């Protein structure tokens, strides 16, 4: 009975869902960036054994799929700012309803999942680009 009350108290608070959304934004887009950078970095490391002078160029190429993780962080930060850091944060945190919490969560999901998938694909594309002949940084325009 007590456990039931406890769970009800948690899941009736909108806060849980909102924070879940923020976490999902950081976690999923971060995973995407990690995998994407994995692709680009391994390709660049390979290319650099042939062309060590291109270090700066590949450094930029490797970092390209990092954007999604940053966006996820920004989205989560916006949520945290609204819920915890705003002037009336205490009131917001207490009064947020389940429906409102879910809304915040849904708002976080696009960057979470789109970030996850797009970072991986961007990583794969940049991996191909970094294997192109020198001066290929200009092919960034096509990304």
């Amino acid at each position: 009975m007590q456990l039931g009350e406890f769970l009800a108290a948690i899941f009736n608070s909108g806060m849980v869902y909102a924070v879940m959304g923020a976490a999902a934004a950081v976690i999923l887009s971060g995973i995407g960036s990690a995998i994407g950078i994995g692709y680009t970095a391994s390709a660049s490391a390979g290319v650099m054994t042939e062309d060590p002078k291109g270090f700066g160029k590949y450094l930029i190429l490797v970092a390209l799929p990092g954007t999604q993780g940053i966006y996820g962080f920004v989205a989560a930060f916006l949520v945290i700012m609204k819920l915890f850091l705003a002037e009336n944060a205490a009131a917001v945190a207490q009064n947020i309803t389940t429906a409102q919490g879910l809304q915040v969560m849904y708002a976080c999901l696009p960057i979470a999942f789109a970030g996850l998938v797009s970072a991986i694909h961007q990583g794969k594309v940049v991996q191909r680009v970094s294997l192109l002949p020198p001066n290929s940084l200009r092919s960034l325009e096509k990304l």
Partner: protein
Amino acid sequence: MAVSQMRRAQIFAHSSHRASLIKDLQDMEIIHINNLNDQEEPTIEAPTESETRKIIRGIQNDLSFLQSTIDYLSGFEEKKGFLAGFLGSSLVLSKQEYSDISKDVAHGEWRTICGDCQTLEDQSATLISREARLRSDRENLSLWARLDVPIEDIGNTEKTVVQIGVIPASTYESLFSDLRESEIDVIFEKVGETKTEVYGIVIFLMDDEQEAMPILNRYGFSVVSLPLASGKVMDRLKQIDEEIAQMAIQRAEIAKKSAQLAVNGSKLMAVYDHMSELLRQEEIRESFLNTDHTFMVEGWVRKKDVKKFEDALAKKYEEVEIISSEPTADDEPPVDLEIRGPADPFQMVTRLYGIPNYREIDPTPFIAPFFAFFFGICLTDAGYGFVIALIAFFAARKMTGGSKNLFRLLIVAGMATVVVGAVTGGWFGISGDKLPGFLKSIRLLDPQGSGQMNFLVAILAIGFVQVWFGFFVKFYVDIRDKDLAAAFLDDLPWVIAMILIAVTGFLAMSDAPTSAVMIAVAAIILCCLIIIIFAGRESGNLVGRLGTGGFELYSKITGTFGDVLSYLRLFALGLATGIIAGVVNTMAGMMWGSLLGKFVAIGILIGGHLFNLVINALGGFIHTARLQFVEFFTKFYEGGGEEFRPFRREHTYVTVVDADNSQGSK
């Protein structure tokens, strides 16, 4: 602030002048020589050609000989300081010293040094491989150390078989129970054992060999031949130790001799550079066009150098003809960036992307202020800015070449970081309310506290400005290239529309009358209509034209939106730096207490902030550069020019300075 103007120069001369003309051109360092034999089909080489090839190959062999010697000797040089080793400072010689060394090259003294080095290297390699062999012998023999019989005495007698060998420890016991059962007399004298194997001597009657051997083999017995010809194992082990000690002495001697030779290292470097010059002189011949008695050199000279170039050659040679001409529309002259000013170090960022082509503008002055400022936002900490600027300042003074530019860039970027940090109240991550009053008073924005939303909006506004500026530069470039239709119909409407969007935003937020907002919105729509109507003006039919125009407008809107949002990375990176800095301070604060705790806390502070500084400066550099390349350059910049590389002396090791200069500094 631009790409230097180039003139094509063609030099015709008599073959007898070839060698001295090449040397003069190399000394002048003015002309970028084109390879005129590039497109030609490979033909059967003329005798003179193969002669050149032979010389080139000879020099290349000498160079690689020198290179290996220099590498070998560098192991014996006195250790440089950590910073000097890291920066790889090069050897500085005056002109006089350098030409003295070049004169010595002909005597071939360097060959003796290199030969000596090679002998030493070979000797030491032999010693190393012999030592390795001895060590492995010792390892094998040490298992048999208790074998107290001279090795030559172990062997078959008239009636018995005597063998030394090894049995797996796991089958050792069962072997003997088996042998006992089969009633064969086999003696195994254990000499040594490890966890997995038992070593010893096996003795049995020759008559039993047929039965004994299969059993022994079944249990994994294998005969061992020791790396020892005669004598006792113990004696041999002692002997090996002595030999190894002896070798250590020999190696120390070789190291000493090498260290003595290492004094010549700098001389060899100078010789190496001199030989590379000679190599370039020979190689460049292959770019010339030749007849039986004359040759032609073609290349590019900066417009401002043309006169100097012609005069210098005309004065020295009578039978030399120089023709200089404007580049034609089909030419792609090499590109020389001539910025001499505060934006100079930012050339390296442009170079990362690719230098402009000959007909483009150099974007370096445009990216310089943004780059420094954005780098500052990624750190938002005045303390870190000071540290970066200070380190970069001292590093830049010691450096030459490409890395000097990096540090000069970091000086500017570090100072920009100080400004941004002061405005946002970032001082080594100290929390806002603990800052001294003065620092608090210059803080305009607090991204770590209540000012986050303002910080975010400010970043978006900055991004909007740079994206707008990119479109504006495109407008300017189109006017410069006299493509007025593109300038006024494609570029200008969007440049104005973006201004109007910003104005509308301000009006909507302030208490401006609705009519003012309406007028602004109407103007925006007008601009958009111009784009829709005119962007597709090359298309023949009306539907295609409007379709192209509509798509153009659509991609301008979404592109601008996406580009501006991309600047949010600055917000995230700036916050992250501040948060990590705050965490470091908190961790140190928890340790602060006892004396030991204070030491630990100071360690955490220094290590933590240094880590945060390095990791975020790196991230800041990358993402700032990315914003320039992906969000800004795509608006107006192509790049892809070929760098202007005058035919010159290229040195790997030595920096030659003017004699006056070096005396002045002494």
